[in-house]
């Protein structure tokens, strides 16, 4: 039993889990307000990270400026996607909507791989690289920062939905589109906004992950990793997304520990969440916090 390793892995799990939570929140945001399942969520991370990376390295912008430009770019990108690709799909069966986002994800990933190359690049260092020691565990500052940013985003989301006008409009739309429209909320604008916010926050998560692990097409895999988190938490629950993200993050690192210490199967880190996913779907398909749709015959 290697206690220190276990705690280190669990700590990593919590930190990565909060990031999963953030991406899962973006996913839930789109699903809740527009009923679209975005299989291209991972590509949003990828594009955000690459755009920020190239602004910082090729154009030599200072970090804050480059980062702001990235957010503006992603906002425009999200709105554009929504208007050009997703708006024609309103009212189409769910298979078509799923397939459109899947097609989008292939297209975007290939485009990004073509423009920026497939090899991983490491982000320019923004914070000092010395690791910090917390309770006897080494933590990289980039990890700490990512943790802090995730928490800030989560609190931001909370206040946005609770108190801001747009947040309330979004919640109203998510609850009942027709009622919201008859109360004077522009559902079209809300849809565009959901995509814009989701793209922006995903890009933020992408930049943070890029700083920790380097920028590469592997980032887009996070978009698939998010499904176990989202399903576990419940598809239409923002809090569920955070909790689900945390659980999956801790779980995959726990699986890594069990695997590395006892089982020696290899690859448990990536595959364990999917086993959990199947189990949840069979036992409790609506997740921990999801709305249960009751159907009576």
């Amino acid at each position, binding site marked *: 039993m290697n206690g220190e390793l276990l705690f280190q892995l669990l700590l990593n799990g919590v930190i990565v889990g909060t990031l999963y939570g953030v991406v899962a929140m973006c996913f839930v945001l789109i699903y809740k307000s527009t009923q679209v399942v975005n299989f291209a969520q991972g590509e949003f991370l990828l594009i955000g990270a690459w755009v920020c990376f190239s602004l910082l390295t090729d154009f030599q912008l200072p970090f804050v400026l480059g980062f702001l430009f990235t957010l503006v770019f992603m906002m425009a990108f999200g709105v554009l996607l929504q208007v050009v690709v997703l708006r024609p799909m309103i009212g189409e069966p769910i298979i078509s909507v799923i397939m459109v986002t899947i097609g989008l*994800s*292939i297209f975007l990933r290939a485009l990004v791989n*073509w423009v920026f190359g497939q090899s991983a690049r490491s982000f320019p260092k923004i914070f000092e690289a010395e690791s910090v020691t917390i309770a006897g565990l080494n933590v990289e500052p980039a990890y700490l920062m990512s943790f802090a940013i995730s928490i800030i985003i989560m609190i931001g989301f909370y206040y946005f939905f609770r108190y801001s006008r747009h947040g309330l409009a979004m919640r109203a739309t998510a609850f009942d589109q027709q009622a919201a429209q008859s109360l004077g909320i522009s559902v079209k604008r809300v849809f565009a906004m959901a995509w814009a916010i989701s793209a922006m926050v995903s890009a933020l998560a992408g930049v943070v992950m890029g700083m920790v692990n380097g920028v590469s097409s592997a980032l887009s895999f996070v978009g698939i990793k998010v499904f176990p988190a989202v399903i576990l938490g419940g598809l239409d629950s923002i809090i569920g997304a955070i909790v689900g993200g945390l659980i999956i993050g801790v779980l995959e690192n726990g699986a890594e520990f069990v695997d590395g210490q006892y089982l020696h199967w290899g690859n448990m880190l990536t*595959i364990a969440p999917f086993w959990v996913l*199947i189990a949840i779907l069979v036992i409790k398909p609506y997740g921990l916090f999801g709305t249960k749709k009751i159907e009576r*015959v």
Partner: protein
Amino acid sequence: MATLSLRPCGDFRTSYRADTKIFDTPTSRWAMVGFLCALYGLVILPQAFPPLASLPVLRLFADGYALSLGIQVCYYAIAALGLNILVGFTGQISLGHAAFFGVGAFSSAWLNTRVGLPVLVCIPLAGLMSAAAGLLFGAPAARIKGLYLAIATLAAQFIIEDLFVRMDWFTGGSSGAMADTPMLGSFAFDNDARYFLLSLSFTIVLFVMAANLMRSRDGRAFVALRDHYLSAEVMGIALTRYRVMSFGIAAFYAGIGGALYGHYLMFVSAEAFTILLSIQFLGMIIIGGLGSVMGAMLGTIFMVALPEVMGAVIAALQTTQWGNRPAVINGLPFFREMAIGAAIILFLIFEPDGLAHRWRLIKTYWKLYPFSH
């Protein structure tokens, strides 16, 4: 003029039998039979008489490359048809079809090399093994549907992909498995033309089976399930049974397609059965037309031809000033992938009923010419 098979005023079906016919008119049936006979003939001729192979049209049917594309169309079309039974007819969605394709390929290789059965027996058996895997992973379909099912099958895709690498005894692990050439007695299907004939035969049998399935009680139950599952249940259709059954059938088709793929390449490796292939299968049926047997074939032809066309376009571009840049030349693999994604998106937005629908429109046009209404 009733015996003339063109029907200028539309279709008037007066019996249930007439309504469920595969081919509306004798002409279309004989046209299809004639087309298939011609296909067999054109492939066999240059093989039987080698000098004929240099003739302009026959060269295409003697050419290894064109035939290998034809073989690809055959095994992918079989798998795509299975997926269409699941997605297009039953209305369930699967993002893990490539995994079952892989199960078929590995099963057949395993049955052949380890158990020692002849290949032509292995291929249907591999279909059955794949169907068993499909029933197992389709079990969640008994409880969930729509989006949740899509995600469950996504998980199945990754789990099975992982198992391929892990189950050394079955798949050869990361080094892959060998698969033999099919033999019929002492006749080996060892060149592209012979293998094409074999896979074409499998394709025809399986397509006829699927067309007949859709005319049967079970096929109608699938469609009822898709159109309105509550009404279907009220009418006494066992939802769970048919949901899981369509998974089994889809996996069976995928398994046979996979087995044909494995014995064609003579080597099966886990890397071939990624999520991208699953998405390509979905792309095939969406481009071809959901819920159409013909569509599965048309979509597969489109999807197999797409990279070739992209390659030709790039090659043509390279002769110009603009296309000769390294970014364009090196971008070919990415363009191909982008084309797949773009084709799926564009078809869904502009032609959601797929190529089969376009084909129907063309037929109607000919039928009604010169009156368009």
